[in-house]
């Protein structure tokens, strides 16, 4: 079995599992499970946005939540002003993308190294958090939408079918939409990465100087990658605002940014399926730990129900012990097993010969 057939098999498997999941879940699961799975799907789209720019583009962005939050806020504000969801939906993708392009131009064309990029994106996130957080008064509004400061914006109208204001997407529809969005994003990114563009951004990640000497402009390629990442995060933000009908500034918070990075680290940089698995796994873990929270004031249960504590332990453990992430590590293990088998086969075919010669 060569790498190409393995690749196609993998893609087919993801497609079949994805579509089966999409069709079957609402038929067999309770509505609250469906609701929870919906948010997992939305967050998985968000994790893919960072998987692209960090895992493949090599751009460590500590502020992916900035684009996510911008998408959510843009959708909310535009929705209160327009009422029909087609334009707000498109705006929620376009505005974060434009913001990412602006920030990316500033950073990449300034030749700021990756570590400083991390600090700058972190700072931008904090600026957004601080600014939005302090807009609680009624004087802060954009058109008909009050920004609400730390209280957030409640009661955001749901998406509707394009052109028909009355036909809002219901909870099950949201599930179909989010899962389909995840599948389309996954396959779209696979396609992008298999293209010439994808090869070049991976080449730049591996060695920027070399790519530059071969005639590619890393600044432009990084900028485009970063912008796509921003657009995807904004898209996820728009879906998220729909899911809970609510946004608040915590969406820009450091905890949110940390989560996205943890999903990618746990799942594995340089894969797409890894961050999806990491995202769903970690979210499931958080929910499971949070669920048994009120069981007494015992010190240990308090600690285990404490999301930052768990995230911190996971992050440290993965950086120190499994720096490649789960999926690449399992992949290496599988290859090692495969190679061990071929070695044994080769050794077995060698032995009789030696005996003859002897």
């Amino acid at each position, binding site marked *: 079995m060569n790498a190409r057939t393995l690749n196609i098999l993998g893609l087919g498997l993801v497609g079949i599992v994805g579509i089966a999941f999409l069709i079957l879940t609402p038929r067999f699961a309770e509505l609250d499970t469906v609701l929870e799975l919906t948010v997992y799907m939305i967050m998985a789209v968000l994790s893919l946005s960072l998987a692209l720019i960090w895992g493949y583009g090599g751009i*460590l962005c500590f502020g992916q939540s900035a684009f996510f939050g911008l998408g959510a806020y843009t959708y909310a504000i535009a929705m209160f002003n327009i009422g029909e969801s087609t334009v707000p939906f498109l705006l929620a993708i376009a505005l974060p993308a434009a913001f990412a392009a602006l920030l990316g131009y*500033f*950073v990449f064309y*300034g*030749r*700021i*190294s*990756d*570590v*400083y990029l*991390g*600090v*700058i994106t*972190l*700072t*931008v996130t*904090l*600026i957004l958090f*601080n*600014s939005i*957080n*302090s807009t609680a008064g009624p004087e802060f509004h954009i058109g008909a939408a009050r920004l609400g400061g730390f209280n957030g914006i409640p009661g955001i109208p749901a998406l509707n079918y394009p052109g028909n204001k009355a036909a809002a997407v219901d909870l099950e529809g949201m599930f179909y939409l989010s899962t389909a969005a995840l599948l389309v994003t996954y396959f779209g990114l696979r396609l992008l990465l298999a293209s010439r563009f994808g090869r070049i951004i991976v080449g730049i990640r591996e060695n920027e100087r070399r790519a530059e000497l071969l005639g590619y402009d890393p600044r432009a390629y990084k900028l485009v990658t970063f912008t796509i990442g921003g657009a995807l995060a904004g898209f996820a933000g728009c879906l998220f605002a729909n899911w809970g009908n609510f946004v608040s500034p915590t969406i820009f918070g*450091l*905890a949110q940014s*940390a989560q996205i*990075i943890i999903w990618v*680290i746990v799942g594995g940089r340089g894969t797409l399926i890894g961050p999806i698995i990491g995202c769903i796994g970690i979210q499931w873990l958080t929910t499971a730990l949070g669920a048994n929270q009120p069981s007494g004031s015992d*010190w240990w249960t*308090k*600690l285990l129900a*404490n*999301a*930052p*504590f*768990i*995230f*911190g*332990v*996971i*992050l*440290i*453990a993965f*950086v*120190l012990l499994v*720096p490649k992430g789960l999926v690449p590590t399992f992949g290496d293990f599988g290859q090692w097993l495969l190679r061990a088998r071929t070695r044994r086969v080769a050794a077995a075919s060698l032995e009789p010969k030696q005996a003859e010669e002897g």
Partner: protein
Amino acid sequence: MDFVVLLAIQVLYAVASLALISVGLAIIFGMMRVINLAHGEFLMLGGYAAIVATSNGVNIWIAMLVVAPLVVGLIGIVVEMTIIRFLYGRMVDTMLATWGLSLFLVGLTTAIFGNTTVGISAPLGSFQIGAYRTSGYTLFVIAVAVVLMAGIFAVLRFTRLGLIARGTMQNANMAAALGVNPPRVYAVTFGIGAALSGLAGAVLAPVSGVFPTIGVAYVAKSFITVIGGGAAILSGTVSASVLFGTINQIATFLTTPVFGEVALLAAAIVLIRLLPQGITGRFFRRGL
């Protein structure tokens, strides 16, 4: 006139507190090229150390100036030996691991102390400038910053420890060839950086109170101060603190404290774009 004096004190205070919260990070970053994202939590731990010590009957000055740096310095050494040591030269991984450490410490302190603000009242009362009153503690914070900077300068410039530190910073291999043990220098450096952060956290605790997530408020500000300052530990920290502190305080006076912070952060981004090597990459190159 009184107002100008008051404004000057406020600006000086903003500069001093920026320098205080940044200097520990600057030492760790400047010497070891390690970006410690748990820096804010070291400050937070310093605050808690001081408060716990005070509530157990320790004199407040001793708690702030002795207990807090000692406790956090020890924690720093433990962190260096258990986490940082394995990640030298992998800058991004260190950033991620220390971010994990930061979350871990936030979670731990939340479980121990609860998610509430604790405080100690600021000693030294207040004094009168014409028609205005201001707290004497403000002057104390400024004094601590000045003494600390002078102390660091003296240690780096005139002592054997400072010589070894500067040598290791410039060329670790050469220093090792001359008989210095770089891992030990790094462990000590990290401990000292953490101790200074603990001191700063304790000194600022009466002003801001302490709560588990206070580190977030500190970490971005101290980062951009260090990055904005550039490679030189002392002149970088001081020059960036002066620039950012002044911008912050003036914007605060003109609008609100929140937009003061925003102005500071925005100024930092512009500065990093214009001077990617920091202020000392272009000016004061021969400074410490």
